[in-house]
């Protein structure tokens, strides 16, 4: 009797053990919230799901864990501070590479992203994946900007459309002039329903940094990435901030109190004449145009008359948690997601730029990119990425810099003195960056 019982226990244990071994390996992918919608668009346009295909091909199960931006950054901070192995792969806001690398938040991945692999990607985005000579992530997306404009509002105000030509791009001075004319013509006295200009990611350095960069004032950080005093509050930055102050408080062509999550809706509803926006929104606007709800045009990102064109760029990369218990599976996953095939389908499906050069071939060869609105990719984006793209600074204190500069833009928008604000935040960031020096 005892022998039978012992045998049963051994068989049960063996079955459990075999079950554990044979069970599919699982990885958790922490991603920015927008990926959920983009995945649906991808499936709709490509006819397959990239996550399901990866699971089928490798037998590795992927748990998706999406968080809205900027909460996703907080989630990463909390998980990494706790040295948690819960997430295996996560999306890295590319300028944060240095910050994460310095704090040990990223697994170096030189082994899966050697120079010959790097050659498949745009050199500028590859540089953003490195810190101190090591590679910490693989570029997934890249980005560029358009100035979308509402054709109906321009026509009503009798203003000619800005051309879709990088050699005839509008200056910020011209944008202000047109905005004022549109608001004067289309709004009743004492009431503002129509706004001249709005930035999609209002006050966020991602988009606002192009203002001082257009005045050749730099990215606000010293070349070694450890200081801001004299860089964030230099003359060019003060000039750019003064322009932003005037836009909101003197010319009043941009609505105050509207956050980045609300700006697109204002443009979609026809209340904004010019919208500085990431290229990825083009599919959404095109859908509205086809439904007859939005009559829009596309022009290149403006610049200051006394400066040079500078356009926001960079995007999300894919990194591996150094505390992950499934590093090999995680490596397979990020290699798969950044492969030529998936990147090509990602670009074709979502129209979002990729870090992988494969998108250039699609733009050059696909007839879809010869007609409006997607001809803007060839006429504007390929030029911007090659000549005007101005990335955010590379610094281990990027987290502190980014949040503080956003507050600085927000305070100036709300009527604070530009120089005082820049001096204040320079001193705050300088203090916070001490720990990296």
């Amino acid at each position, binding site marked *: 009797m005892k022998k039978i019982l012992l045998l049963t226990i051994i068989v049960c244990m063996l079955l459990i053990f075999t079950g554990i071994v044979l069970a599919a390996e699982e990885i958790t992918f922490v991603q920015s919230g927008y990926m959920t919608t983009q995945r649906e668009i991808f499936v709709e346009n490509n006819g397959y799901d990239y996550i399901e295909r990866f699971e089928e091909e490798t037998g590795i199960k992927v748990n998706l864990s999406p968080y809205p931006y900027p909460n996703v950054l907080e989630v990463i901070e909390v998980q990494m501070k706790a040295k948690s192995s819960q997430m295996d792969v996560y999306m890295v806001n590319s300028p944060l590479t240095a910050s994460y690398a310095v*704090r040990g938040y990223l697994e170096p991945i030189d082994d899966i992203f050697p120079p010959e692999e790097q050659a498949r990607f745009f050199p500028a985005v590859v540089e953003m994946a490195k810190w*101190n000579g090591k590679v910490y992530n693989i570029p997934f997306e890249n980005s560029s900007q358009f100035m979308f404009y509402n054709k109906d509002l321009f026509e009503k105000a009798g203003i000619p459309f800005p051309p879709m030509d990088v050699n005839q791009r509008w200056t910020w001075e011209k944008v202000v002039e047109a905005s004022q004319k549109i608001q004067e013509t289309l709004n009743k006295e004492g009431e503002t329903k129509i706004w001249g200009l709005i930035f999609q990611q209002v006050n966020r350095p991602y988009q606002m940094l192009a203002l001082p960069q257009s005045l050749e004032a730099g990215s606000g950080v010293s070349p070694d990435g450890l200081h801001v005093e004299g860089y964030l509050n230099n003359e060019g930055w003060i000039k750019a901030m003064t322009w932003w102050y005037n836009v909101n408080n003197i010319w009043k062509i941009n*609505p*105050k*109190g509207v956050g980045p999550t609300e700006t697109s809706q204002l443009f979609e509803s026809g209340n904004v004449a010019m919208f500085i926006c990431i290229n990825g929104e083009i599919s959404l606007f095109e859908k509205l145009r086809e439904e007859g709800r939005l009559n829009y045009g596309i022009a290149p990102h403006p610049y200051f008359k006394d400066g040079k064109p500078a356009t926001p760029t960079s995007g999300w990369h894919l990194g591996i948690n150094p505390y992950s218990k499934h590093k090999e599976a995680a490596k397979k996953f990020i290699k798969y997601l950044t492969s030529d095939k998936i990147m090509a389908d990602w670009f074709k499906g979502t129209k979002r730029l990729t870090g992988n050069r494969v998108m250039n071939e699609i733009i050059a060869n696909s007839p879809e990119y010869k007609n409006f609105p997607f001809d803007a990719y060839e006429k504007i984006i390929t030029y911007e990425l090659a000549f005007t793209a101005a990335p955010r600074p590379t610094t281990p204190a990027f987290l502190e810099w980014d949040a503080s500069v956003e507050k600085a833009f927000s*305070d100036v928008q*709300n*009527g604070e003195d530009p120089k005082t604000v820049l001096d204040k935040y320079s001193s705050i960031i300088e203090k916070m960056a001490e*720990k990296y020096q």
Partner: protein
Amino acid sequence: MKLNSLRGYKDIVGTINHVPTISISRKIIPYLFLLPALSGLFFFRFFPIIVNFYGSLYRSSYSSQGETSIFTGLSNYIDLFYDPTFWNSLKVTFKLNLFLNPIQITMALIIALLIRKNTLFNRISRTLFLLPLGIAIAISSSIWRILLDQNYGLINGILEFLSIPRQPFLTSSNQAIWCIVLVAAWCGISYLMIFFLVGLQEIPNELYESAKIDGSNNWNSFWKITLPLLKRTILFVTVLDTSSNFLLFVPIFMLTKGGPNMSTDTLMYQNYSSAFIYSDFRRALTISSVILIILLIVVFFEFKMLGKEDQ
């Protein structure tokens, strides 16, 4: 039946009193009953405080080897002392509490007095006043954000209708703090009102009746009867309100994020941004300890001032 059970109880007590071993258990048993609550209190309250204070004595440093923690004693506290953003946050926290607490407590007391009697109208009013309690503070803050919007908000619409210029509210460094006071007061008054209602119901009606016979009017009765007899409730509500408003976070997070120009950057929001935006957990731990110390001092003085007669 009652008498019998009482006798039985006395017998048992008598027996217990004569057996020394049971006497020890009598002393231990109450503590055993308290143990689950006390251990909860220790692990979820005192232990985190100890860990928090211990963590605030270290500093993070970053090098090519990654993050290292170095024991630096009170240096984080000294840094905070020389940090202008900390002093600004302290000032904002006190300003907020100085106005918000009296407004909440006074309004809660007034409303409780008005709806104290058990009439149909008061029963309906009570329900209406308690409605804010049923709405999560995050949701009510979002609704207030829409109401206070500079461009499309209802309140500005009403002002415009009354030919009063539109107000910036949440985007003005002079007005934002008052908007936070308004929202927090709206959210908190009804909660405090419940305590006052309970306190008022404990005051015997006979006292008011005899005061009335002696010629006292409502005003005098309030000052001579209601207020003195509500003193314990007022003390409790004041301490509760101070501690919750010192830790006020949601309306600030939802409406202003500490701005504009740091005008609503309370200690609690500084704490959050240090930890989760700037990833400076040591500074956050230090601020948490400072908040606790300040709160203890403030509550100590509140006890001193309001608890005088009871002593």
